[in-house]
């Protein structure tokens, strides 16, 4: 064990980390540039501090650790990553970023340029796992009555909203900008926000939680479309029930007509579906979209059926109707007049409904913050901003937001998306512009940083950050290290 200790002589200290035994004045470093006198305390400014991946909770930077012996082998110290949260910013960015921190990772001199970006061109993409109808495409999404975005496409099992962006932030009324900014910030900070959609539903969105549609919390994503559900469960229904209808706003499936039923030789039942037939056993538009069964507006599933064909149907024929999440299900038998009459569901059919539920994933709201760092922010990082962009594109520079991994969109600029649930609490702020303030970090090799025109004279060692800088573990992403 090497005890690096100091003998204080006046305000100077003597470092005994190595036999050079430098006397170091306050604010100065020893001959090695690895140890320095910080207010009378010997601190290690040596760039051997790496990401603290092993700690399970955020801790604090320790200014100095009495070092253990090197084992002469590859060294992997726990490492610390500095995030930009609370770093402040230097808008309009003609000055170097507030913190340009150097550390060493696996022996390579690294630079993390830590800044908080002011994003007036930013927004959030919200994915809401539900088949319930939230509103027509392009319908306006409002918060507190102000337009803050719109409904975009519906993707597998989810409804997408696109919120924010420059037109709502700065292109509308002052109130629209302020409300948009507040909603984006709250969504990004994982707080619940109530959104109303013109001609659609009211939905409470909170990143990482189920959506609440018209006051009802969503539980599950659908297991598949109605047709897919038939395909998945046809064999389990065979011999237990004569007909199955999986009610779905997109594609309602009918077992006896579906290819899966045909392959299992399930006989025709004389069922008549409303809606537009796509291919055998697959129906579009059986009902208006809504928040009822399978994303339709119906509460009575029989309303999607016409009368049974007496040539095929027979009294006593059994039928299961179920939604794509298994949330709604009912069992019927045809009476003498070939009318379906609801009956208690047999146990084995109940189990098949539970199986559908079991195969549905929990419904969730996902909020991706999306912003472009293509503008002046880059000048806080380097005096030749386009080199930073190119360096990111060439994967020499790794971009993170609050320490969280980001997806950088190909093409011009540095437009990135980040899952806000991966970021530390309270990572986002705002300025009255209105615009959001989001953390962004660029990590690259010190030599690459110099080559792209970095503010080398502002690079400071990690240990020089005040020890109230919060640290947090971050997921390791193979291949993404700069």
């Amino acid at each position: 064990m090497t005890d690096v200790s100091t003998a204080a002589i006046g305000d100077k200290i003597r470092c005994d980390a190595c036999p050079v035994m430098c006397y170091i004045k306050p604010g100065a470093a020893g001959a090695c540039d690895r140890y320095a006198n910080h207010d009378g305390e010997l601190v290690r400014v040596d760039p051997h501090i790496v990401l603290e991946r092993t700690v399970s909770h955020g801790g604090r930077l320790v200014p100095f650790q009495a070092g253990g012996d090197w084992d002469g082998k590859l060294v992997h110290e726990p490492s610390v990553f500095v995030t930009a949260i609370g770093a402040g910013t230097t808008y309009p960015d003609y000055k170097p970023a507030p913190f340009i921190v150097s550390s060493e990772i696996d022996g390579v001199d690294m630079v993390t340029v830590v800044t908080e970006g002011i994003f007036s061109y930013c927004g959030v993409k919200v994915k809401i796992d539900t088949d319930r109808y939230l509103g027509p495409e392009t319908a306006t999404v409002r918060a507190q009555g102000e337009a803050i975005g719109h409904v975009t496409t519906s993707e597998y099992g989810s409804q997408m909203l696109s919120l924010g962006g420059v037109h709502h932030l700065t292109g509308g009324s002052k109130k629209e900008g302020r409300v948009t900014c507040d909603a984006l910030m709250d969504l990004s900070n994982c707080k619940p926000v109530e959104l109303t959609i013109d001609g659609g539903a009211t939905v409470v969105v909170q990143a990482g939680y189920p959506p609440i549609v018209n006051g009802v919390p969503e539980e599950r994503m659908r297991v598949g479309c109605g047709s897919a559900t038939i395909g998945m469960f046809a064999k389990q229904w065979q011999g237990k029930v004569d007909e199955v209808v999986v009610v779905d706003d997109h594609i309602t499936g009918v077992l006896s007509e579906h290819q899966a039923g045909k392959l299992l030789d399930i006989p025709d039942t004389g069922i008549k579906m409303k809606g537009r037939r796509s291919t055998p056993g697959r129906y579009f538009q059986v009902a208006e979209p809504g928040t009822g069964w399978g994303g339709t507006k119906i509460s009575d599933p029989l309303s999607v059926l016409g009368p049974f064909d007496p040539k095929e149907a027979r009294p006593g024929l059994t039928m299961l109707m179920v939604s794509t999440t298994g949330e709604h299900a009912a069992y019927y038998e045809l009476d003498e007049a070939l009318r379906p009459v609801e009956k208690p569901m047999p146990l084995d059919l109940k189990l098949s409904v539970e199986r559908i539920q079991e195969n549905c994933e929990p419904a969730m709201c996902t909020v991706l913050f999306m912003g472009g760092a293509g503008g002046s922010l880059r000048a806080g990082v380097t005096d030749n901003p386009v080199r930073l962009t190119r360096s990111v594109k060439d994967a020499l520079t790794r971009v993170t937001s609050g320490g969280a991994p980001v997806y950088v969109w190909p093409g011009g600029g540095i437009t990135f998306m980040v899952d806000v649930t991966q970021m530390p609490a309270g990572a986002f702020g705002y300025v009255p512009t209105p615009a959001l303030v989001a953390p962004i970090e660029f990590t690259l090799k010190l030599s690459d940083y110099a080559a792209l025109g970095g503010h080398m004279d502002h690079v400071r060692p990690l240990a020089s950050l005040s020890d109230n800088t919060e640290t947090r573990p971050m997921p390791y992403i193979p291949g993404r290290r700069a």
Partner: protein
Amino acid sequence: MKRVPQIALLPDGKRLHLQDGPIDLVIEAKGSDADVRAAYEAAAGRFTGLLDELCTELAGLRQPADPAHCQLKGVVARRMHAAVAPFAADHFITPMAAVAGSVAEEILGAMLGAARLEHAYVNNGGDIALYLADGEQLTVGLMDRPDRHGLLRAMTIDADDPVRGVATSGRHGRSFSLGIADAVTVLARTASQADAAATIIANAVDLPGHPAVIRCPANELQLDSDLGARLVTRDLGALRENEIEQALRAGAGQAQQLFAAGLIEGATLRLLGETVAVGTTGTETRALPALHRNAIQDTVHV
């Protein structure tokens, strides 16, 4: 227990990184796997304890060198003295001016004693000792100012050249400079000679008494600096074109003398974006695009 230096392969798996106190070496050897391993083991072996060895004579190493006599004992200490002695009659210089190059040479020597290599370098913070077997060549990248985007040039040194040492000195480095040069890169027969000469030439790139040059006693910055109370350059304001030329001319004159005396093979002097070259600066000089990664990776950063 004993303090052990840091010994690690860099992430590329090829280069060896040795660090102890203020000494920081990046080493690469080319040869058979067994030879490279033997060379790296020899480097690590020689490196362990080397700093302690030097520090036993630290007080003597920090004294101005006697041009004729050497009282120092250690082989590295004596090499440091030998490298600065030619300058000691006319200049203030201590053996410390050649510490980096001398250590690099010592480690390279240990490697060559243990293995048969095609080529190798030991880069001690920009002061580099080279080995080239017959027909081999190495490319050295020149980055004139690490804090700015600037010209990146590559010099190819082949086995026929007498150059086996490259060193850079200037006001931006870890050691202090009495002059104002951003960088003076010297090619010489050995790393220790290059190191000492780069210090002398960088000190000569100067504008004595100019108000734009901010100076400070060295021992106010580092209490036990071998430069004592001598004024070292801390900052440099704007200079007129003719002033830059004047400072570079002073340095180039010094370099010419050393070249004529056979102490260096060439030098490149850089100040505020202007460059002057003296003697040979490699057999081939080609400009590299600044972010041409592959090309840069293959070169040694000076």
